[in-house]
């Protein structure tokens, strides 16, 4: 379904639009009218993204994700769901995806560590 949607020059299948439309419609309305303003019902506080800048990691990350998505037609949610099918290919995709995530997380950790090291050195 995914590659059918992304194949605008070929056998285009717009079904994904209906998934997104259904999802966004419900989520937009639910976020606006059903979610309590002060705090969630079962947790003490909201945990929401704080970033607002449109920066290089956002753009590069989205671009790279889109390529991977177009190549196999899987994004994280459906890939995890598809593990229930027991198919080897899905496990291969998900393991590779986890590896990719861990690589970025590891590099972020390393860069943060070196930044705080430099900041500490500057103070000295």
């Amino acid at each position, binding site marked *: 379904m*995914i590659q059918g949607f992304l*194949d*605008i*020059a*070929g056998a285009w299948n717009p*079904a994904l639009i209906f*998934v*997104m*439309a*259904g*999802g966004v*419609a*419900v*989520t*937009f309305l*639910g*976020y606006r009218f059903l*979610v309590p303003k002060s705090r*969630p019902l*079962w*947790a003490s506080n*909201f*945990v*929401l*993204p704080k970033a*607002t800048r*449109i920066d290089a*990691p*956002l*753009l*590069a*990350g*989205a*671009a*790279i*994700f*889109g*390529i*991977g998505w*177009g*190549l*196999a037609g*899987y994004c994280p*949610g459906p890939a*995890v*769901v598809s593990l*229930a099918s027991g198919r*080897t*290919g899905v496990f291969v*995709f998900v393991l*590779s*995806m*986890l590896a990719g*995530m*861990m*690589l*970025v*997380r*590891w590099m972020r*950790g390393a860069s943060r560590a070196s930044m705080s090291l430099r900041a500490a050195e500057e103070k000295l």
Partner: protein
Amino acid sequence: MHPFVLAAIGGVLIGISAVLLMMLSGRIAGISGIVGGLLPPAPAPDRSWRLAFVLGLIGAPALLRAVTGDAHIGAPTVGMPMLVVAGLLVGIGTALGSGCTSGHGICGISRLSPRSIIAVLVFMATGIATVFVTRHVIGA
């Protein structure tokens, strides 16, 4: 039932899931973030709700398969090497870009987040370009 109706129903269910997670737990239903927070190095301290969510994701179709004999999940359409490459790119891209189709696409757009709207436009563009190249230029 018409495929577009089924697709919309699927989307509605995803939306209900996102609204419930925000209403009850105060969090964005972004799968790459939920899963990413379970990973080393430095996994997030709040593991239990993440595990519960992932168990739900896998458990629902697993239950369907147990009851009906079929999880109704299609086979991958590409070979193993491509699945490795695609998986790596999706993992790297979503971690770097702080989100995927659920986080940026469903939740971010619903919050009218400029970051998410831009991210969706970018990954849709590269997704379309990728399929164009693989299907019509390379002919894969």
